[in-house]
């Protein structure tokens, strides 16, 4: 609970409430503006009249002007694939670091942590080369592959696994569980909140990721929505702002709706993921 004794009072309280609201207004302003532009005819995109008619025409035109359905499908495939691979790899590695004694454990863990600082995001030139050598350039797999072994996930899950009481582990082994059986029956169920937190962070990261997909993809069949949106709005097709804004809202809608519905889980997940 907050420190009630230091709650602002009187004039200070009014001033702070006003400040908080001004800031809040500034923070939603760009979004409100985007909504206004997207839901009104082009001639009202920069004119604010209460009588301006509402329309969905901009969305219809945006949807027709580029293969957004395909882009969405690509993003969904990408995000699912990355998350599935991450969950498996990260679980196994975290289990190894948390509960097994083997030579080189600390050195290997330090090597894992390197990725927290030097992310695949900055190693674009060399990773592009690797994808060329592997012959998988311009595929959804090539977008996701560099992110599948996630140091962040290993770190997060290792912390959680370490809090599992050893007695539970040993009891399961006495019952005849193999190490993988123990992982599946004891550790994974107990780490459910961490998995949820990690999944939300991972999904929003890869839904939003842009630079690497921009570099490695070159066709409608593999482009995620972020890159699709950029290709759509950068090519000069004489599109007006209303259509571009509608497309922008369209591409963010699934995430935005999910966030508004599961606000609490999102905020808590980001919090949990950040506190280590």
């Amino acid at each position, binding site marked *: 609970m907050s*420190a009630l004794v230091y709650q602002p009072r009187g004039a200070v309280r009014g001033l702070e409430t006003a400040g908080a609201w001004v800031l809040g207004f500034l923070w939603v*302003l760009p979004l409100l503006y985007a909504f206004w532009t997207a839901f009104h005819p082009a001639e009202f995109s920069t004119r604010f009249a209460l009588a301006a008619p509402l329309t969905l025409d901009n969305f219809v035109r945006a949807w027709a002007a580029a293969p957004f359905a395909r882009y969405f499908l690509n993003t969904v495939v990408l995000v699912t694939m990355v998350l599935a691979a991450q969950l498996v790899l990260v679980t196994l590695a975290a289990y190894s670091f948390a509960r097994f004694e083997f030579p080189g454990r600390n050195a290997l863990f330090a090597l894992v942590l390197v990725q927290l600082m030097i992310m695949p995001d900055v190693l674009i030139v060399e990773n592009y080369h690797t994808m060329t050598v592997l012959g998988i350039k311009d595929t959804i797999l090539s977008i996701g592959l560099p992110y599948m072994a996630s140091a962040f996930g290993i770190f997060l899950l290792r912390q959680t696994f370490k809090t599992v009481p050893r007695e539970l582990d040993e009891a399961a082994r006495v019952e005849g569980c193999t190490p993988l059986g123990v992982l599946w029956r004891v550790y994974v169920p107990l780490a459910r909140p961490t998995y949820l937190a990690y999944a939300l962070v991972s999904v929003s990261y890869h839904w939003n990721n842009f630079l690497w997909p921009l570099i490695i993809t070159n066709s409608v069949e593999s482009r995620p929505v972020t890159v699709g949106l950029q290709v759509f709005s*950068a090519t000069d097709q004489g599109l007006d702002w209303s259509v571009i804004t509608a497309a922008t809202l369209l591409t963010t809608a699934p995430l935005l709706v999910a966030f508004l519905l599961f606000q609490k889980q999102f905020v808590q997940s980001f919090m949990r993921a*950040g*506190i280590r």
Partner: protein
Amino acid sequence: MTRSAQWIYGWLLLLPAMALLVLFTHYPALATLWQSFFSTPKGSRGSVFVGADNYEQLVSDPIFWQALSNNLWYALGTIPASIVIAILMALWVNERIVGRGFLRLAYFTPTILPMIAVANIWLFFYTPEYGLLQQFLSLFGAPNHNWLGSKSTALPALMAVTIWKEAGFFMIFYLAALQSMSPHLAEAAAIEGASRWYFFRRVTFPLLMPTTLFVLVNAVINAFRLIDHIVVMTRGGPDNATALLLYYVYEIGFRFWDTAYAAALTVVLVTILALVALAQFVFLERRVHYQ
């Protein structure tokens, strides 16, 4: 379980993740360093060892120096501001303020939007003549100004976008820290007659230090890693005024296809990130001893 079984299990469980990490983090980091001493293959002429040529080119490349200084200004302009705003936001939504739920939502929403979508929206916001910002300023008789098109305002305009996007993200960490603070501290301080500002300065803020350190490291990494908005809003222009280091790597590597020079530039970028890591390690160590 025997000792050797422990070893084998440990290694085997680690193997798949480690293989991918090596392939896409450690190997490319080392390969970049290696490539930076070779020339870019051109036509029939393959890549040859050129020693420090790429680095000599880098030292005498004014655009590199500009990108580096842009990036430092960008970090300096965005990080302290984001942190101050984040602390303010956290303090506010931690109080019993009117409309707390809405404010929390308003502050946090930019965080979950893709940077590229955000950039599109802000691009329109900054448009000369029609953009909302210009319309607002015109009410006060301000002359028309191309915010992203002039050298003096382009980088600050991008900084505003970054602050807007990141402050809400950092807010939640401060909020978590504030909520885990014992109310007895405030009660004791109030009995001692400490003012509200004094309490914040001498108790709350120092207790938030670990959070600030965490946020700081993240913010620095992001300042060097996230360039999506540059691709959309300015493409490094006008006249390289908004070229950040990673954007320059992208331009050299994927628009001019000079991979060797891009490798040398990447080495500089990775070195900066490694220094951040080192600084964090040293600070964390000190904090551990301090406690």
